[in-house]
C-alpha cells in the first residue's frame, strides 16, 4: 500500500512536470492580458522538436532547448496576430493548435512510432526545475518591478502605456515566454515521460494546462500544485485499469477539469481573485 502511494506520487510528479511547465507559461501569458489557447499546439511542436533533436544528436537536453525555441516561435505567431493585428485571441489559439498538430504530424512522419534512444529519466532535473520555476515566477510576479508591469498590462494596459512602458512589448515577451515553457512541457513528454514520437501524443494535456492556469487563479504556486494533482490523477487512471475498463478512467481527468473549474469559480466569487481585467482584450492606443 505504502509503495503504491509513493509510486503514485512519483508518477504524478513525472506527468505533472510537463503540465507544470505549460501551465506556468499560460499563467504568464494570461497575466499580461493574452489568452493563448494554442498550448496544445505549442506542446506538440515542442514534443516533436525535442524528439527530433534528441534522436539525431543524442542529447535530450539540447532537444528541450530546441523545444523551447519551437514553442516560443509558435507563440510569436499568436502574439503577432492578437497583439499587433488584434485578431480574436480564442480563434487564433485554436488555429495554432490545429496548425501545431498538423505540422508536427507531417514533419514527424519519418519518426512516427519510434522510441527515443537516449532518454531523460522521468524524474529529472526538470522536475525539480519545475518547482524552482514556480517559486521564482511567483516571486517575480508579486515582488519585482517586472511583475508589477506584467500584471498591470493584464489589468489596465492603458495605465501601463501612459507610464511610458511599451504594453505591446510586455505582452509579446510574456506570450513568447509562455510559449517557450509550453514547448519545454511538450518536449518533456517525448524525451522523458514517454520517450518516443507519435503524432498527437499530447492527447489534450495542453487544454488541461490552460484549465490549471484558470483554477489556480493565475498564481504560479497554485498552478504547480494543480499540475501535480492532475499528474497524479492521470496516473491513477492508468493504475486502475487493472480492475476497470480503460475508457471511463481516461475520461476522468477531463471530467475532473470541468468539475474543478465549476468549483473554483464558485469559491472565488467576484472578489479580488478574479481574472485579469483586460484578459482577452486587444490594446489600442488612444481608445480606452
Amino acid at each position, binding site marked *: 500500500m505504502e509503495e503504491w502511494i509513493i509510486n503514485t506520487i512519483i508518477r504524478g510528479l513525472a506527468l505533472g512536470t510537463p503540465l507544470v511547465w505549460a501551465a506556468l507559461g499560460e499563467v504568464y501569458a494570461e497575466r499580461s492580458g493574452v489568452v493563448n489557447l494554442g498550448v496544445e499546439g505549442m506542446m506538440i511542436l515542442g514534443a516533436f522538436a525535442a524528439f527530433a533533436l534528441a534522436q539525431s544528436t543524442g542529447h535530450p537536453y539540447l532537444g528541450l532547448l530546441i523545444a523551447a525555441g519551437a514553442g516560443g516561435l509558435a507563440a510569436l505567431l499568436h502574439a503577432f496576430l492578437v497583439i499587433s493585428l488584434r485578431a480574436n485571441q480564442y480563434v487564433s489559439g485554436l488555429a495554432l493548435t490545429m496548425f501545431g498538430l498538423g505540422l508536427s504530424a507531417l514533419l514527424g512522419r519519418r519518426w512516427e512510432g519510434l522510441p527515443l534512444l537516449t532518454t531523460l529519466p522521468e524524474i529529472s532535473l526538470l522536475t525539480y526545475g519545475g518547482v524552482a520555476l514556480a517559486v521564482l515566477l511567483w516571486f517575480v510576479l508579486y515582488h519585482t518591478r517586472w511583475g*508589477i508591469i506584467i500584471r498591470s498590462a493584464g489589468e489596465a494596459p*492603458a495605465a501601463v502605456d*501612459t507610464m511610458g512602458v511599451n504594453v505591446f512589448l510586455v505582452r509579446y515577451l510574456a506570450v513568447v515566454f509562455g510559449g517557450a515553457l509550453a514547448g519545454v512541457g511538450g518536449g518533456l513528454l517525448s524525451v522523458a515521460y514517454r520517450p518516443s514520437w507519435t503524432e498527437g501524443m499530447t492527447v489534450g494535456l495542453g487544454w488541461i494546462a490552460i484549465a490549471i492556469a484558470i483554477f489556480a487563479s493565475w498564481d504560479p504556486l497554485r498552478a504547480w500544485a494543480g499540475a501535480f494533482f492532475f499528474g497524479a490523477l492521470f496516473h491513477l487512471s492508468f493504475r486502475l485499469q487493472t480492475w476497470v475498463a480503460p475508457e471511463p478512467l481516461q475520461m476522468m481527468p477531463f471530467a475532473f477539469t470541468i468539475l474543478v473549474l465549476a468549483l473554483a469559480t464558485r469559491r472565488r466569487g467576484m472578489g479580488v481573485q478574479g481574472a485579469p481585467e483586460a484578459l482577452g482584450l486587444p490594446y489600442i492606443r*488612444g481608445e480606452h
Partner: protein
Amino acid sequence: MEEITKQFPGVLANDRVTLEVRAGEVHALLGENGAGKTTLVKVLYGIHQPDRGRIVLRGRPVRVRSPHDALTLGLGMVPQHFLLVRRHTVAENVCLGLAGTRALFPAVQVERRLTELGTRYGLAVNPRAPVWSLSISEQQRVEILKALLRGATILILDEPTSVLTPQEAQSLFAVLRRMKAEGHAVIFITHKLDEVNAVADRITVLRKGRVVDTLLASAADTRMLARMMVGRDVEFHLQRSPGTRGGEALRLDNLWALSQRGLDALRGVSLTVNRGEIVGVAGVAGNGQTELVEVVTGLRQAASGTVRVLDRDVTNANARTVLEAGAAHIPEERMRTGIVGSMSVAENLILRRYRYPPFSRGMLLDPEAIMKFVRRMITEYSIATPDPRLPARALSGGNVQRLILAREFSGDPWLIVAAHPTSGLDVSATEQIHSLLLNRRERSAGILLVSEDLDEILALSDRIAVIYEGRIVGIVPAATATREWLGLMMTGQRP
C-alpha cells in the same frame, strides 16, 4: 504647440491650433465637449500624432511619439478617466514604469517618497491601500503624485473637477497654486466657466477644433467666455412651467443593495418621485448612484426594501417587467448599454420594443411596421443618419442619445429614469435633451435624474436628493438649494 492639426475620420478635431503655456502659470483650456481640447492634449502627450504642426518645448522643437517621450520631456497628465490598476496598491501603481526604481520589492522603496511628496503638496494618501478602496478624489491625488514623482514640470489635467464636489475642487485648486508657486506649468482643461476665473492665469478658448482666442483671466468675464466658447449667447436659465403634479410615479422604501464587489452600495434609500416632477439625485460618483438606477430599472437585485413603479411592486423584477410597468430608462453608459453599436439604427430604435405589436406579430418581426416607426422617429427626434440600416456606432454621441430618447419616450412612459443624460454632449445637444426631458415632465411623467453635473441638477430639478455612501442624506426643493449646501451634503457633512 504651433499650428497643430489633427484629422479623424469625419471630423477635424484640431485645426491649426496654437497653444503657448508659460512656466509658473495655470493655463485653462476652455471649450465645450467636442471642441478638441482632449485631442489637443493627447497630441501633446504623445497618444495621438499630429497630422501637421509642431511642439516646441523650452525653445526647442520636439517630437512626442509616445507617452514615454512625453514623460522624459517632463510632461505629466492626469486623464479624465483615471488610468490606475484598480487591484494594485497605490505604491504599486506609482512605481509602474518609474525610472530608477529597484528591481526587487520596488513598492517598499516608493512608499517613503510618496509620503514625502504628499506632505509637500498637500496630497496625502495611504500608499498601501488598493486603489479600488479609494475615493475618486483620492484616486485623482494618486494620478497627480504619479506625474510629480516622474519629475513632471508641465502638468495636464483633463476635466479634473467633473468628478469632485465644490469643496474638493477648492482643495485641488490649492494644490495647483502650490505647484504653480514651485514653478510648474499647469494646463487645466474645463468647460466650466466659474472654475476658470477661480484658478487660471490665462485662458485659451477652443471651438470646433480652432482657437478662438487666448486672453488673461483677469480680463475675461463669464458671459464673454461663454459666447466665445459656444459661438452665440447662451441661455443660462431654462424656461420651465409649473407643470401638473400627479400621483406617485416611483416609490422606494428602505432599499438596500450590494455593489459588484459585494459591498453595501445602497443602505436604506427611501425616495418618491411624483408624476410631473423631476427629482435630481446629486452626489459624488461612486456613492451608490449606479446601483440605485440599476435596482430601480430591474438590472440589479435589491437585498431588501421595495421598489414600486406606478403603484406596482417591481422589487427584484427584471428589466422587462419594469419597462412594462411604464418606466423608461436612459442608461448611464449610452454607448455600452444603451445601444448595440454593430446593429442598425432601425434595430436599435426597437431594441426594447421589438416584442410588442406592431413590431412583432406572433414569433415574427414585421419589417414594414418597424421601418414606418423608424422613419417617424428619425424625423421627430432629428436623428442625423444617412440610412437607418447603418450601424448605430457610426452615430455621434448626441444622435445616439436622441435615438435612445426616441425609443424610450415612444412608449409614453410615466416614469423616466435618466442617468447622466447629457454627459459628454455639446451645448446644443444638451439643450435639446433638457427640453425633451422638461417636455415629458409637462406631460406628467415623473423623472428621476441622476447626474454629477450640479448645474444640470439645479437647472432641471423640482426637488434635489443628495446621495452619500448609499444613503439619501437630504432632500430639498430645488428653489432653496445652493451649490455650497449641496457640496457639503455630498461629502457627508451636514451643514
